[in-house]
Protein backbone atom coordinates (compact mmCIF):
# COMPACT_ATOMS: atom_id res chain seq x y z
CA UNK A 1 0.00 0.00 0.00
CA UNK A 2 1.25 3.45 -0.76
CA UNK A 3 0.22 6.84 0.47
CA UNK A 4 1.17 10.26 -0.68
CA UNK A 5 2.82 12.78 1.57
CA UNK A 6 -0.08 14.49 3.35
CA UNK A 7 1.57 17.87 3.87
CA UNK A 8 4.25 18.54 1.31
CA UNK A 9 6.61 21.22 2.60
CA UNK A 10 9.38 21.84 0.14
CA UNK A 11 12.52 22.64 2.08
CA UNK A 12 15.68 23.90 0.44
CA UNK A 13 18.41 21.27 0.54
CA UNK A 14 21.55 21.86 2.55
CA UNK A 15 24.52 22.63 0.30
CA UNK A 16 27.19 20.02 -0.24
CA UNK A 17 30.89 20.71 0.27
CA UNK A 18 34.05 19.00 -0.90
CA UNK A 19 35.06 15.80 0.88
CA UNK A 20 38.47 17.46 1.32
CA UNK A 21 41.81 15.68 1.63
CA UNK A 22 41.50 14.07 5.04
CA UNK A 23 38.70 11.53 4.68
CA UNK A 24 41.21 8.68 4.61
CA UNK A 25 40.93 7.85 8.31
CA UNK A 26 37.16 8.32 8.41
CA UNK A 27 35.32 6.97 5.39
CA UNK A 28 37.24 3.81 4.39
CA UNK A 29 36.46 0.71 6.44
CA UNK A 30 37.38 -2.95 6.46
CA UNK A 31 36.14 -4.75 3.29
CA UNK A 32 34.49 -1.52 2.13
CA UNK A 33 35.02 -2.45 -1.53
CA UNK A 34 34.08 -6.11 -1.19
CA UNK A 35 30.36 -6.44 -1.85
CA UNK A 36 31.25 -10.10 -2.14
CA UNK A 37 34.33 -11.84 -0.81
CA UNK A 38 36.90 -12.01 -3.63
CA UNK A 39 36.87 -15.47 -5.14
CA UNK A 40 33.16 -16.03 -4.55
CA UNK A 41 31.63 -17.82 -7.58
CA UNK A 42 30.22 -15.25 -10.03
CA UNK A 43 32.06 -12.38 -8.35
CA UNK A 44 33.66 -9.89 -10.68
CA UNK A 45 36.09 -7.04 -10.32
CA UNK A 46 34.89 -3.56 -11.25
CA UNK A 47 37.86 -1.25 -11.60
CA UNK A 48 38.97 1.94 -13.23
CA UNK A 49 40.93 5.15 -12.90
CA UNK A 50 39.68 8.61 -11.99
CA UNK A 51 41.25 11.36 -14.13
CA UNK A 52 41.32 15.15 -13.94
CA UNK A 53 41.02 17.61 -16.79
CA UNK A 54 44.74 17.34 -17.60
CA UNK A 55 44.44 13.59 -17.99
CA UNK A 56 46.28 12.92 -14.73
CA UNK A 57 45.02 10.30 -12.30
CA UNK A 58 43.44 11.82 -9.20
CA UNK A 59 44.95 10.27 -6.07
CA UNK A 60 42.37 11.58 -3.63
CA UNK A 61 38.94 10.59 -4.85
CA UNK A 62 36.53 8.18 -3.18
CA UNK A 63 33.70 6.34 -4.93
CA UNK A 64 30.58 4.58 -3.78
CA UNK A 65 28.51 2.09 -5.72
CA UNK A 66 24.97 0.92 -5.10
CA UNK A 67 23.40 -1.81 -7.18
CA UNK A 68 20.88 -4.57 -7.57
CA UNK A 69 21.92 -8.16 -7.02
CA UNK A 70 22.49 -10.67 -9.84
CA UNK A 71 18.74 -11.33 -10.07
CA UNK A 72 17.89 -7.64 -10.34
CA UNK A 73 16.52 -7.32 -6.82
CA UNK A 74 17.16 -4.13 -4.86
CA UNK A 75 18.86 -5.17 -1.60
CA UNK A 76 17.32 -4.06 1.69
CA UNK A 77 19.86 -5.66 4.01
CA UNK A 78 22.00 -3.92 6.60
CA UNK A 79 25.62 -4.93 7.10
CA UNK A 80 27.53 -2.88 4.54
CA UNK A 81 29.87 -1.50 7.21
CA UNK A 82 30.40 -4.78 9.06
CA UNK A 83 30.34 -7.41 6.38
CA UNK A 84 29.44 -10.94 7.36
CA UNK A 85 30.90 -12.42 4.18
CA UNK A 86 27.54 -13.76 2.95
CA UNK A 87 24.97 -10.98 2.80
CA UNK A 88 24.85 -8.99 -0.40
CA UNK A 89 23.98 -5.44 0.67
CA UNK A 90 24.52 -3.79 -2.72
CA UNK A 91 26.69 -0.99 -1.34
CA UNK A 92 30.44 -0.49 -1.55
CA UNK A 93 32.97 2.27 -1.06
CA UNK A 94 36.46 2.51 -2.55
CA UNK A 95 39.01 5.25 -2.09
CA UNK A 96 41.36 5.36 -5.04
CA UNK A 97 45.03 4.53 -4.57
CA UNK A 98 47.85 6.87 -5.47
CA UNK A 99 47.53 5.92 -9.12
CA UNK A 100 43.88 6.98 -9.10
CA UNK A 101 42.61 3.40 -9.36
CA UNK A 102 39.51 2.16 -7.55
CA UNK A 103 38.40 -1.47 -7.33
CA UNK A 104 35.28 -3.27 -6.20
CA UNK A 105 34.47 -6.94 -5.93
CA UNK A 106 30.82 -7.37 -6.83
CA UNK A 107 28.41 -9.16 -9.15
CA UNK A 108 26.92 -8.18 -12.46
CA UNK A 109 23.63 -6.57 -11.52
CA UNK A 110 20.56 -8.12 -13.09
CA UNK A 111 17.90 -6.07 -14.87
CA UNK A 112 15.52 -4.56 -12.30
CA UNK A 113 12.63 -5.06 -14.69
CA UNK A 114 12.23 -7.11 -17.83
CA UNK A 115 14.21 -5.65 -20.70
CA UNK A 116 15.91 -2.94 -18.61
CA UNK A 117 19.62 -2.30 -19.11
CA UNK A 118 21.44 -3.23 -15.90
CA UNK A 119 23.59 -0.50 -14.38
CA UNK A 120 25.37 0.33 -11.16
CA UNK A 121 24.71 3.69 -9.52
CA UNK A 122 27.90 5.59 -8.70
CA UNK A 123 28.67 8.67 -6.60
CA UNK A 124 32.06 10.37 -6.81
CA UNK A 125 33.75 12.53 -4.17
CA UNK A 126 37.20 14.11 -4.40
CA UNK A 127 39.37 16.79 -2.94
CA UNK A 128 38.88 19.76 -5.24
CA UNK A 129 35.42 18.59 -6.24
CA UNK A 130 32.97 21.00 -4.63
CA UNK A 131 30.01 18.64 -4.50
CA UNK A 132 29.39 14.97 -5.15
CA UNK A 133 28.72 13.79 -8.66
CA UNK A 134 26.27 11.04 -9.56
CA UNK A 135 26.69 8.81 -12.55
CA UNK A 136 25.96 5.28 -13.75
CA UNK A 137 28.02 2.46 -15.16
CA UNK A 138 26.19 0.12 -17.54
CA UNK A 139 27.09 -3.44 -18.39
CA UNK A 140 28.23 -3.63 -22.02
CA UNK A 141 26.12 -6.64 -23.02
CA UNK A 142 22.59 -6.70 -24.37
CA UNK A 143 22.68 -3.96 -26.96
CA UNK A 144 18.90 -3.97 -27.36
CA UNK A 145 18.43 -3.05 -23.72
CA UNK A 146 21.13 -0.38 -23.94
CA UNK A 147 19.51 1.04 -27.07
CA UNK A 148 16.16 1.26 -25.26
CA UNK A 149 17.54 2.81 -22.07
CA UNK A 150 15.97 6.24 -21.47
CA UNK A 151 19.16 7.88 -20.22
CA UNK A 152 21.47 6.42 -22.87
CA UNK A 153 18.98 7.25 -25.60
CA UNK A 154 19.12 10.91 -24.58
CA UNK A 155 22.91 11.13 -25.08
CA UNK A 156 25.09 11.70 -28.12
CA UNK A 157 27.13 8.59 -29.03
CA UNK A 158 30.45 9.97 -27.76
CA UNK A 159 28.90 10.95 -24.44
CA UNK A 160 26.88 7.74 -24.13
CA UNK A 161 30.10 5.77 -24.44
CA UNK A 162 31.39 7.23 -21.16
CA UNK A 163 28.75 5.32 -19.19
CA UNK A 164 29.35 1.85 -20.58
CA UNK A 165 31.99 -0.38 -19.01
CA UNK A 166 34.38 -2.56 -20.94
CA UNK A 167 34.23 -6.32 -20.31
CA UNK A 168 37.64 -7.67 -19.37
CA UNK A 169 38.96 -11.07 -20.42
CA UNK A 170 38.63 -12.30 -16.82
CA UNK A 171 34.95 -11.38 -16.77
CA UNK A 172 35.47 -8.16 -14.84
CA UNK A 173 34.49 -4.64 -15.79
CA UNK A 174 36.75 -1.68 -16.46
CA UNK A 175 35.29 1.79 -16.33
CA UNK A 176 37.25 5.03 -16.04
CA UNK A 177 35.92 8.34 -14.79
CA UNK A 178 37.01 11.63 -16.33
CA UNK A 179 35.95 14.64 -14.30
CA UNK A 180 36.74 17.06 -17.09
CA UNK A 181 37.87 17.41 -20.70
CA UNK A 182 38.18 14.88 -23.49
CA UNK A 183 35.79 12.02 -22.84
CA UNK A 184 34.31 13.77 -19.80
CA UNK A 185 32.04 11.32 -18.01
CA UNK A 186 28.33 12.09 -18.07
CA UNK A 187 27.30 13.19 -14.60
CA UNK A 188 23.66 13.26 -13.61
CA UNK A 189 21.22 15.75 -12.17
CA UNK A 190 18.14 14.12 -10.67
CA UNK A 191 16.53 17.32 -9.46
CA UNK A 192 15.37 18.94 -12.65
CA UNK A 193 15.30 22.66 -13.07
CA UNK A 194 13.60 23.57 -9.79
CA UNK A 195 16.49 22.72 -7.50
CA UNK A 196 18.33 26.01 -7.87
CA UNK A 197 22.08 26.27 -7.99
CA UNK A 198 24.31 26.21 -11.00
CA UNK A 199 23.93 22.88 -12.70
CA UNK A 200 23.61 20.92 -9.51
Amino acid at each position, binding site marked *: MTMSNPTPTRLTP*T*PGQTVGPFYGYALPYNKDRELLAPGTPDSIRLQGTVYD*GAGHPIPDAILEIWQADAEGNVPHR*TGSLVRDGYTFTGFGRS*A*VGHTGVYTFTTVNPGPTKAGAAPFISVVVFAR*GLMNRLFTRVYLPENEDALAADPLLRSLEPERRRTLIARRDADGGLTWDIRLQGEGETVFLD*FEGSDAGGAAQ
Partner: protein
Amino acid sequence: MPEEVTIDIFNADPITEDVSDDATEAAPTTHASAVPALDAAAESQADLSAEMKAIGEAYAQALRNGAAAETQPRLDYAPYRSSVLRHPTKDLHHADPETIEMYSPAFGHMDVHALESDLTIAHNGEPLGERIIVSGRVLDGDGRPVAGQLVEIWQANSSGRYIHKRDQHPAPIDPNFTGVGRCITGADGSYSFTTIKPGAYPWKNHLNAWRPAHIHFSLFGQEFTQRIITQMYFPGDQLFPLDPIYQSILDQDARDRLVATYNHEQTTPEWALAYNWNIVLTGSKRTWTENEALGADGDDHE
Protein backbone atom coordinates in the same frame (compact mmCIF):
# COMPACT_ATOMS: atom_id res chain seq x y z
CA MET B 1 32.90 0.44 22.63
CA PRO B 2 34.44 1.09 19.25
CA GLU B 3 37.78 -0.50 18.65
CA GLU B 4 40.76 1.72 19.17
CA VAL B 5 40.88 3.49 15.85
CA THR B 6 44.09 2.70 14.08
CA ILE B 7 46.01 5.65 12.82
CA ASP B 8 47.22 3.59 9.92
CA ILE B 9 45.73 5.27 6.92
CA PHE B 10 43.89 3.24 4.30
CA ASN B 11 44.33 5.94 1.79
CA ALA B 12 48.05 6.45 1.96
CA ASP B 13 48.22 8.89 -0.89
CA PRO B 14 50.15 12.08 -1.40
CA ILE B 15 47.31 14.19 -0.16
CA THR B 16 48.07 17.80 0.46
CA GLU B 17 46.06 20.87 -0.23
CA ASP B 18 48.63 21.96 -2.80
CA VAL B 19 47.52 22.97 -6.23
CA SER B 20 50.38 21.56 -8.19
CA ASP B 21 51.03 17.89 -8.52
CA ASP B 22 54.76 18.30 -8.01
CA ALA B 23 54.64 20.44 -4.92
CA THR B 24 57.65 19.70 -2.80
CA GLU B 25 56.64 18.23 0.46
CA ALA B 26 57.80 20.14 3.45
CA ALA B 27 59.66 17.97 5.91
CA PRO B 28 57.25 17.01 8.66
CA THR B 29 57.69 19.50 11.41
CA THR B 30 56.86 18.17 14.80
CA HIS B 31 58.79 20.56 16.99
CA ALA B 32 56.46 23.14 18.45
CA SER B 33 58.69 26.07 17.56
CA ALA B 34 59.28 25.02 13.97
CA VAL B 35 57.31 27.36 11.77
CA PRO B 36 57.20 26.01 8.22
CA ALA B 37 58.97 28.00 5.52
CA LEU B 38 56.50 30.09 3.58
CA ASP B 39 56.17 29.83 -0.16
CA ALA B 40 57.03 33.26 -1.50
CA ALA B 41 55.48 32.36 -4.87
CA ALA B 42 52.08 31.64 -3.37
CA GLU B 43 49.24 33.98 -4.14
CA SER B 44 48.13 36.34 -1.43
CA GLN B 45 44.85 36.39 0.42
CA ALA B 46 44.23 39.80 -1.17
CA ASP B 47 44.44 38.23 -4.65
CA LEU B 48 42.04 35.47 -3.69
CA SER B 49 39.66 37.79 -1.89
CA ALA B 50 39.49 40.06 -4.94
CA GLU B 51 38.62 37.06 -7.13
CA MET B 52 35.94 35.87 -4.71
CA LYS B 53 34.52 39.39 -4.46
CA ALA B 54 34.22 39.69 -8.25
CA ILE B 55 32.36 36.36 -8.48
CA GLY B 56 30.10 37.39 -5.61
CA GLU B 57 29.30 40.73 -7.24
CA ALA B 58 28.46 39.07 -10.55
CA TYR B 59 26.11 36.72 -8.66
CA ALA B 60 24.44 39.62 -6.82
CA GLN B 61 23.91 41.36 -10.17
CA ALA B 62 22.41 38.21 -11.67
CA LEU B 63 20.01 37.99 -8.73
CA ARG B 64 18.96 41.60 -9.28
CA ASN B 65 18.33 40.69 -12.92
CA GLY B 66 15.98 37.96 -11.83
CA ALA B 67 18.20 34.87 -11.75
CA ALA B 68 17.17 32.14 -9.32
CA ALA B 69 19.09 31.90 -6.07
CA GLU B 70 21.77 29.21 -6.11
CA THR B 71 21.44 26.66 -3.34
CA GLN B 72 24.57 24.57 -3.89
CA PRO B 73 28.28 25.38 -4.31
CA ARG B 74 29.61 26.17 -7.75
CA LEU B 75 31.48 23.18 -9.12
CA ASP B 76 33.52 25.63 -11.17
CA TYR B 77 34.94 27.92 -8.50
CA ALA B 78 38.50 28.85 -9.42
CA PRO B 79 39.42 30.49 -6.09
CA TYR B 80 39.59 26.95 -4.73
CA ARG B 81 42.56 26.13 -6.93
CA SER B 82 42.25 22.37 -6.70
CA SER B 83 38.84 22.57 -8.35
CA VAL B 84 40.18 23.99 -11.61
CA LEU B 85 40.87 20.61 -13.23
CA ARG B 86 38.31 18.70 -11.21
CA HIS B 87 34.97 20.14 -12.25
CA PRO B 88 32.91 18.94 -15.20
CA THR B 89 32.71 21.52 -17.94
CA LYS B 90 29.54 20.05 -19.42
CA ASP B 91 26.19 20.61 -17.76
CA LEU B 92 25.00 17.84 -15.51
CA HIS B 93 22.66 15.69 -17.56
CA HIS B 94 19.11 15.46 -16.29
CA ALA B 95 18.00 11.92 -15.56
CA ASP B 96 14.89 10.50 -13.99
CA PRO B 97 15.96 8.23 -11.17
CA GLU B 98 15.31 4.56 -11.84
CA THR B 99 14.85 1.56 -9.59
CA ILE B 100 18.07 1.28 -7.58
CA GLU B 101 18.47 5.07 -7.42
CA MET B 102 15.12 5.40 -5.68
CA TYR B 103 16.28 3.26 -2.78
CA SER B 104 19.17 3.60 -0.40
CA PRO B 105 21.56 1.14 1.15
CA ALA B 106 20.24 0.07 4.55
CA PHE B 107 22.39 0.70 7.60
CA GLY B 108 21.59 -0.24 11.14
CA HIS B 109 22.86 -1.02 14.57
CA MET B 110 24.65 -4.03 13.17
CA ASP B 111 26.81 -1.53 11.27
CA VAL B 112 27.27 1.15 13.90
CA HIS B 113 27.73 0.82 17.65
CA ALA B 114 25.89 3.36 19.82
CA LEU B 115 29.15 4.52 21.40
CA GLU B 116 30.55 5.60 18.04
CA SER B 117 28.60 8.84 18.40
CA ASP B 118 30.84 9.93 21.29
CA LEU B 119 34.20 11.01 19.87
CA THR B 120 35.55 11.82 23.32
CA ILE B 121 35.63 8.24 24.60
CA ALA B 122 37.54 6.45 21.85
CA HIS B 123 40.74 6.46 23.91
CA ASN B 124 41.71 6.06 27.53
CA GLY B 125 41.89 9.71 28.45
CA GLU B 126 39.89 12.87 27.89
CA PRO B 127 40.75 14.77 24.72
CA LEU B 128 41.89 18.39 24.98
CA GLY B 129 39.62 21.21 23.94
CA GLU B 130 36.10 22.49 24.31
CA ARG B 131 33.67 19.57 24.73
CA ILE B 132 30.56 20.07 22.58
CA ILE B 133 27.36 18.26 21.68
CA VAL B 134 26.26 18.63 18.06
CA SER B 135 22.73 17.46 17.41
CA GLY B 136 19.91 17.97 14.98
CA ARG B 137 17.68 16.19 12.53
CA VAL B 138 18.07 14.90 9.01
CA LEU B 139 15.03 15.71 6.89
CA ASP B 140 14.23 15.20 3.25
CA GLY B 141 13.14 18.03 0.99
CA ASP B 142 9.52 17.29 1.82
CA GLY B 143 10.20 17.82 5.52
CA ARG B 144 9.99 14.13 6.41
CA PRO B 145 12.47 12.72 8.90
CA VAL B 146 15.19 10.53 7.45
CA ALA B 147 14.94 7.64 9.91
CA GLY B 148 17.39 4.81 10.46
CA GLN B 149 20.10 6.17 8.19
CA LEU B 150 23.85 6.52 8.49
CA VAL B 151 25.58 9.75 9.54
CA GLU B 152 29.39 9.81 9.50
CA ILE B 153 31.55 12.69 10.72
CA TRP B 154 35.24 13.50 10.83
CA GLN B 155 37.15 16.53 12.00
CA ALA B 156 40.40 18.08 13.19
CA ASN B 157 41.28 18.12 16.87
CA SER B 158 41.08 21.23 19.03
CA SER B 159 44.45 22.38 17.71
CA GLY B 160 43.39 22.13 14.10
CA ARG B 161 45.26 18.90 13.37
CA TYR B 162 43.82 15.90 11.55
CA ILE B 163 44.97 12.38 12.30
CA HIS B 164 46.15 11.93 8.78
CA LYS B 165 49.74 11.35 7.91
CA ARG B 166 49.67 13.93 5.19
CA ASP B 167 48.44 16.67 7.49
CA GLN B 168 51.69 18.51 8.11
CA HIS B 169 50.32 21.36 10.16
CA PRO B 170 52.77 21.57 13.08
CA ALA B 171 50.03 21.55 15.68
CA PRO B 172 49.93 18.79 18.27
CA ILE B 173 48.21 15.46 17.71
CA ASP B 174 45.99 14.64 20.67
CA PRO B 175 46.55 11.00 21.67
CA ASN B 176 43.04 10.98 23.11
CA PHE B 177 41.26 12.19 20.02
CA THR B 178 40.87 10.59 16.61
CA GLY B 179 38.02 12.69 15.29
CA VAL B 180 35.78 10.07 13.63
CA GLY B 181 32.19 9.33 14.57
CA ARG B 182 29.10 7.59 13.24
CA CYS B 183 25.49 7.17 14.22
CA ILE B 184 22.17 5.92 12.90
CA THR B 185 19.37 8.49 12.88
CA GLY B 186 16.36 7.97 15.13
CA ALA B 187 12.76 7.56 13.99
CA ASP B 188 12.44 11.36 13.99
CA GLY B 189 15.62 11.77 11.91
CA SER B 190 17.59 12.88 14.95
CA TYR B 191 21.32 12.50 15.45
CA SER B 192 23.64 13.58 18.23
CA PHE B 193 27.43 13.57 18.57
CA THR B 194 29.59 14.40 21.56
CA THR B 195 32.93 15.73 20.43
CA ILE B 196 35.50 18.51 20.78
CA LYS B 197 35.28 21.80 18.98
CA PRO B 198 37.74 21.56 16.08
CA GLY B 199 40.36 24.23 15.54
CA ALA B 200 40.94 26.23 12.37
CA TYR B 201 43.80 24.92 10.27
CA PRO B 202 46.09 26.28 7.58
CA TRP B 203 46.17 24.93 4.04
CA LYS B 204 48.08 25.74 0.89
CA ASN B 205 45.46 27.09 -1.46
CA HIS B 206 47.21 30.45 -1.16
CA LEU B 207 49.54 32.16 1.30
CA ASN B 208 47.96 32.44 4.75
CA ALA B 209 44.94 30.34 3.81
CA TRP B 210 43.03 29.05 6.86
CA ARG B 211 39.94 26.90 6.94
CA PRO B 212 37.18 27.97 9.33
CA ALA B 213 36.58 25.37 12.04
CA HIS B 214 34.30 22.69 10.60
CA ILE B 215 33.05 19.14 10.97
CA HIS B 216 32.71 16.99 7.86
CA PHE B 217 29.30 15.29 7.62
CA SER B 218 28.41 12.38 5.33
CA LEU B 219 24.71 11.61 4.95
CA PHE B 220 22.46 9.05 3.33
CA GLY B 221 18.78 9.54 2.65
CA GLN B 222 16.07 7.02 1.81
CA GLU B 223 17.07 7.27 -1.85
CA PHE B 224 20.59 7.15 -3.25
CA THR B 225 20.02 10.43 -5.10
CA GLN B 226 19.86 12.14 -1.68
CA ARG B 227 23.44 11.23 -0.79
CA ILE B 228 25.58 14.20 0.28
CA ILE B 229 28.84 15.03 1.98
CA THR B 230 29.15 18.50 3.44
CA GLN B 231 30.74 20.52 6.23
CA MET B 232 29.16 22.09 9.32
CA TYR B 233 30.58 25.38 10.53
CA PHE B 234 30.36 27.29 13.81
CA PRO B 235 28.55 30.63 14.15
CA GLY B 236 30.45 33.89 13.90
CA ASP B 237 33.66 32.52 12.39
CA GLN B 238 35.86 35.40 11.22
CA LEU B 239 37.37 33.20 8.50
CA PHE B 240 34.12 32.82 6.49
CA PRO B 241 34.78 35.77 4.13
CA LEU B 242 38.31 34.53 3.44
CA ASP B 243 37.65 30.84 2.76
CA PRO B 244 37.18 29.73 -0.88
CA ILE B 245 35.45 26.49 0.13
CA TYR B 246 32.76 28.24 2.18
CA GLN B 247 32.60 31.02 -0.43
CA SER B 248 32.05 28.51 -3.27
CA ILE B 249 28.44 28.74 -2.13
CA LEU B 250 27.57 32.18 -3.47
CA ASP B 251 24.23 32.71 -1.81
CA GLN B 252 24.29 33.91 1.79
CA ASP B 253 21.07 32.08 2.69
CA ALA B 254 22.58 28.87 1.35
CA ARG B 255 25.84 29.43 3.26
CA ASP B 256 23.87 30.01 6.44
CA ARG B 257 22.41 26.50 6.06
CA LEU B 258 25.86 25.11 6.88
CA VAL B 259 26.28 27.08 10.10
CA ALA B 260 25.16 25.52 13.38
CA THR B 261 23.43 27.56 16.06
CA TYR B 262 24.50 27.66 19.66
CA ASN B 263 21.83 26.31 22.02
CA HIS B 264 22.21 27.26 25.65
CA GLU B 265 19.12 25.30 26.69
CA GLN B 266 20.80 22.09 25.58
CA THR B 267 24.20 23.02 26.96
CA THR B 268 24.99 20.63 29.80
CA PRO B 269 26.09 22.53 32.93
CA GLU B 270 29.74 22.02 33.75
CA TRP B 271 30.08 19.54 30.90
CA ALA B 272 29.51 20.54 27.26
CA LEU B 273 28.35 23.36 25.01
CA ALA B 274 25.50 22.47 22.65
CA TYR B 275 25.13 23.27 18.97
CA ASN B 276 22.18 22.43 16.72
CA TRP B 277 22.31 21.80 13.02
CA ASN B 278 19.56 20.34 10.83
CA ILE B 279 20.33 18.86 7.45
CA VAL B 280 17.87 18.84 4.56
CA LEU B 281 18.38 16.36 1.75
CA THR B 282 16.72 16.61 -1.64
CA GLY B 283 13.09 15.66 -2.10
CA SER B 284 11.83 12.15 -2.58
CA LYS B 285 11.37 10.80 -6.12
CA ARG B 286 9.40 7.77 -5.04
CA THR B 287 5.98 7.16 -3.54
CA TRP B 288 6.58 5.92 -0.05
CA THR B 289 5.09 2.88 1.54
CA GLU B 290 2.95 3.47 4.59
CA ASN B 291 5.66 2.11 6.89
CA GLU B 292 8.21 4.49 5.49
CA ALA B 293 5.86 7.44 5.74
CA LEU B 294 5.35 6.58 9.40
CA GLY B 295 9.08 6.54 10.00
CA ALA B 296 9.35 2.81 10.52
CA ASP B 297 12.16 2.30 8.06
CA GLY B 298 15.66 1.33 9.12
CA ASP B 299 16.82 -1.92 10.61
CA ASP B 300 15.77 -3.86 13.66
CA HIS B 301 12.75 -5.18 11.81
CA GLU B 302 14.51 -7.72 9.67
